Structures are given as C-alpha cells and as structure tokens.
C-alpha cells in the first residue's frame, strides 16, 4: 500500500517503466505466443500498481495518515 507521496512517485515511475518494457516487447517479440506469455507478468504488475495508485489518490491526505 502506498503511504506517502514519495512512494506514489516511485510507483508511478515503476508503472511507466513496465509500460515501456511491454511496448518494447510488443515491437521486438515476433512470436505471438511468446509475447502474450511474457507480457502477462508485466501487465499483471501494472494492474496491481495502478490499483494501489487509485486507492491512494482516492483518499484525502488526512485520511491517508489515519489509515496507515
């Protein structure tokens, strides 16, 4: 769970890195089966991190401090 703005920043950077990796994979992996399987881990991790970001941003700072 994201606890503060610094962790938010790190998570957003990591999402961007994963997205760039998948975009690169999509252009370099010529085998569709390889692509789908290799991308699955990165896409699952992107989904998980985006949910964390959404949960963090859905709370006001005063609420974050009381729930962590």
């Amino acid at each position, binding site marked *: 769970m994201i606890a503060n703005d610094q*962790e938010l920043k*790190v998570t957003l950077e*990591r999402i961007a*890195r*994963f997205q*760039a*990796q998948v975009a*690169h*994979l999509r252009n*370099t*992996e010529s*085998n569709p*089966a*390889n692509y789908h*399987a*290799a991308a*699955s*881990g*990165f896409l*699952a*991790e992107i989904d*998980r991190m985006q949910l964390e970001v959404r949960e963090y941003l859905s709370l006001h700072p005063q609420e974050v401090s009381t729930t962590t």
Partner: protein
Amino acid sequence: MKRLEWQAMSAEIAGSRAVTPFTETGDLPAGVHAVSIRELVAQLAVGTPQRKAVATRLERVQELATATGAVDRFFVFGSFVTAKPEPNDVDVFLLMNDSFDLGTVTGEARLLFDHAAAQAYFGASVFWLRRLSAFPSEQEAVAGSRAKERDAASSN
C-alpha cells in the same frame, strides 16, 4: 537496486559462491550477487517452515526452467532473499536465449511462463523475456521488475 542472481547455465562457475550476508536492515547489499542454487537454499531455507516451503518452490522452478535448455540468466529477488522470516512467495526473473520458443515447452514447465499460472501452481511470481526484448537494457529490465516490496533484494 538489490538483487540476487545465479547463472543457471553455469552453475559450476558459481557453485562455490556463498550468499552475501544481509545488512543490518535485513537486505542484501546493493548489487547482484551470484550464487549457486545449492548455496542459496542451504543458507536461506532456514528459520521457519515458510522459508523452507518457499525454497522448495524455488528449487522446483529452477529445475523446470533449466530443463528447457533456454535459460541464460536466472534472477531471484523479493522477500525470500531478505531476512524476512515469512516470505510470501518467490520472485524470479528469467532471461531466455533469443531462440527460445514457448511453443516447444510442454507440461509443468509451460506453466512457468504464464504469470498467473505460475503464481497459482508454483507460488512463484515469474517474469521472463527473451534477451533481445529486454528494455532499455538487461540490467535495467531486471531491476525494474524487482519485488512488490520496496525493500526487496535481487540481481546483476
């Protein structure tokens, strides 16, 4: 980045290496630490039943991955390679050689290469790429994939 690696296809070379001691925060020192699977299990599958269970999963994953004959580099990261007594699972990043074709992999080994299936079947979070697809470099691709835990340890 802190991570741990052994070269699956050159276990003899790394065979005598021991796991680097943890820092006072319970992490590996920053950087990649080449070790053999034998040393890794001997030194980290200790203390709690959960650690032993996770080590058993890792050994199975390593065995199946190596059997494909296409693993160039095998990285372990996440809570198992920290001092955490109850790691949830084992995190692995595989760099496969550029001729690897998933279509040639059958049976249990095939499950390793499907992230959700590997999680459900092996209790392992597996990321993998052919080396040519690592972005922006192998080093950074592996580093970027490291653990959910922000204090995780992992590779080279």
